[in-house]
């Protein structure tokens, strides 16, 4: 693990210190530009009222690790004309009023490669993003990207999965910072349901191996499940369940922001109160 001085007191570190309040973080995911850029900016601002960290999806034409919900979100965003610069643009606007909530950009390698690793790292950092997750960039291929991100004082957050065995674990936690994202199911986003009991031991193993907080995602859809996972993990990521609300509201011409924020509020409450019973 590379420990560099900039990591002292990053927004992500400060956010995870809230665990001292005996609760896990609620991490909300939406896709930038879904259903359009302006709405996703409103969502970003609104979600910060409920979420401790926001993961902002960068749309990609071929999102291989996504289930139907986020595939469609990506398609809606691209159909609305979203460019990488637009994604960074809403982060910059968000930072004009919010300097606390960490933003983690999540997407696929090709748009970042096309942008240029250094240029992307600098622009994303200047816009106010805190970390980056690239789904299709395993540690074996990540050196150049990690150098660029760390050079711009950003965290590269790596995914660990149920198939990550002891042999691979050191490679996976090496050069990762911010937190570790544990993919709780072998599969695509938003399809299988996570088993809260089954994540306990991998979370402990990852925490021990990395010295970092561990957030759990992929397959957490309901407040009940979010609460269960919140009892064992440092953070709970919900994506598809929120994006489903966007799709449903947009299809019915309803107020997208209202629907998503109401769902986010339920999830946030569930995560925050999860450990009260056990403290």
């Amino acid at each position, binding site marked *: 693990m590379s420990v560099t001085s900039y990591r002292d007191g990053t927004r992500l570190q400060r956010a995870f210190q809230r665990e001292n309040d005996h609760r896990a973080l609620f991490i909300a995911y939406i896709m930038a530009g879904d259903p359009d850029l302006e709405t996703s900016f409103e969502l970003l601002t609104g979600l910060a009222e409920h979420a401790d960290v926001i993961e902002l999806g960068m*749309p*990609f*034409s*071929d*999102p*291989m*690790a*996504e*289930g*139907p919900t986020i*595939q469609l979100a990506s*398609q809606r965003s*691209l159909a609305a004309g979203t*460019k*990488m610069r637009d994604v960074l643009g809403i982060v910059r606007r968000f930072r004009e009023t919010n300097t606390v909530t960490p933003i983690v950009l999540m997407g696929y*390698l*090709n*748009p*970042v*490669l*096309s*942008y240029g690793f250094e240029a992307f790292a600098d622009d994303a950092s200047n816009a106010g993003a805190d970390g980056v997750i690239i*789904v*299709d*960039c*395993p540690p*074996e*291929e990540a050196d150049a990207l990690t150098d660029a991100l760390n050079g711009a004082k950003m965290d590269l957050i*790596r*995914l*660990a*999965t*149920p*198939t*990550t*065995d002891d042999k*691979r674990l050191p490679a*996976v936690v090496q050069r990762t910072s911010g937190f570790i994202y544990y*993919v709780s199911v*072998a*599969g*695509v986003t938003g*399809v*299988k349901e996570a088993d809260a009991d089954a994540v306990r031991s991998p979370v402990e193993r990852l925490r021990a191996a990395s010295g970092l907080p561990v957030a759990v995602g992929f397959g957490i859809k309901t407040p009940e499940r979010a609460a269960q996972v919140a009892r064992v993990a440092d953070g709970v990521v919900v994506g598809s369940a929120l994006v489903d609300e966007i799709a449903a509201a947009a299809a019915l011409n309803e107020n997208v922001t209202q629907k998503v924020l109401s769902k986010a509020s339920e999830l946030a409450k569930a995560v925050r109160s999860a450990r009260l019973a056990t403290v």
Partner: protein
Amino acid sequence: MNAPVSPAERPNDWSAYPDAKGRFGDYGGLYVAETLMPLVLELDRAYTEAKNDPAFQAELRGYLTHYVGRPSPLYFAERLSQHLGGAKIYFKREELNHTGAHKINNCMGQILLAQRMGKTRIIAETGAGQHGVASATVTARFGLPCVVYMGAVDVARQKPNVFRMNLLGAEVRPVTSGAATLKDAMNEAMRDWVTNVEDTYYMIGTAAGPHPYPAMVRDFQAVIGSETREQIQELEGRLPDAVVACVGGGSNAIGMFHPFLADESVKIYGVEASGHGLETDKHAASLTGGRPGVLHGNKTYLLQDDDGQILDAHSISAGLDYPGIGPEHSFLHDIGRAQYLTCTDDEALKAFQLCAELEGIIPALESAHALAKLPQLAKEIGEGGIIVLCLSGRGDKDIFTVADALGRTI
């Protein structure tokens, strides 16, 4: 990208590619989600073992001889040669293989590997349906369940192959996301694989994808070039002056090219599909009209916009309708060992008809793209020269598409 390399400075040992990281120069590699990483690393180990196991190779040779029907003939296309004037043209008759294309060479190798690895379920992607049919064939032969992902657009334009796959007991799942063609079928197959990591073997049909697929598929297809070397020396007493093959993902091409890479006297030509024309946005020429990027587990030339979004490819031939290309072709292109030409839908249609009329062989529309460059190449190589073309598949599957393009009804 890689700098061009002069012939004298090119590698002597082409088997040194890919390197330990799965790289052909800048291309290839292992760009998959973490869930799949242990699986592809395990596949790499298993394949390396199998490759070096004489028993595995002997078993594969047995099936290639008695089930696939190898060696495939090397045929002197006399009338076409006369018609074009210039070099002598030979066809490597991969369309005479069982299932009617080169695809089964690879499937036979991979099914034996999958069994060796104890996998009990096979998934595959297909464009034209030739790889799907080959996958369905070997899974029927070895009694394993098979799911084939196929773009909904391709399902519609390749109905005979869909029916064939069904007859062979495979389940064809139409894919409606994106442009609903080969690239989207590959995305969906990856999603299946990431969901069914325990029992499933992903049988990729072309020399692309994460390492070790580009090398493994090449090795299984290199039987094409190896046989050609022997056959042409028997027939002509020397190596050819040029070999030519169509390139989508590029598996028949790399299979033909690879055994000739060290022979600098042999010119190597790949032919990409330029659809409605390179100046339009309806083509599939990733080397000629694209730039390097990362998709489907490897770094290679891709059709993409300024923002790194992958563009939809177009070709009249479903098997070439893919916005990427195998990474080894990207490498050969950059260093200058192979030249990549382009062929439009119209040129391919004309070549398709000419081959049928002069040689009594109805070629696949994919192979017709290579055929279409013969007039130019026969002149360039000239009288007394020899060209071998990989006739990668037969065209029965394409008769509806061709009839439609010619404005005829069947």
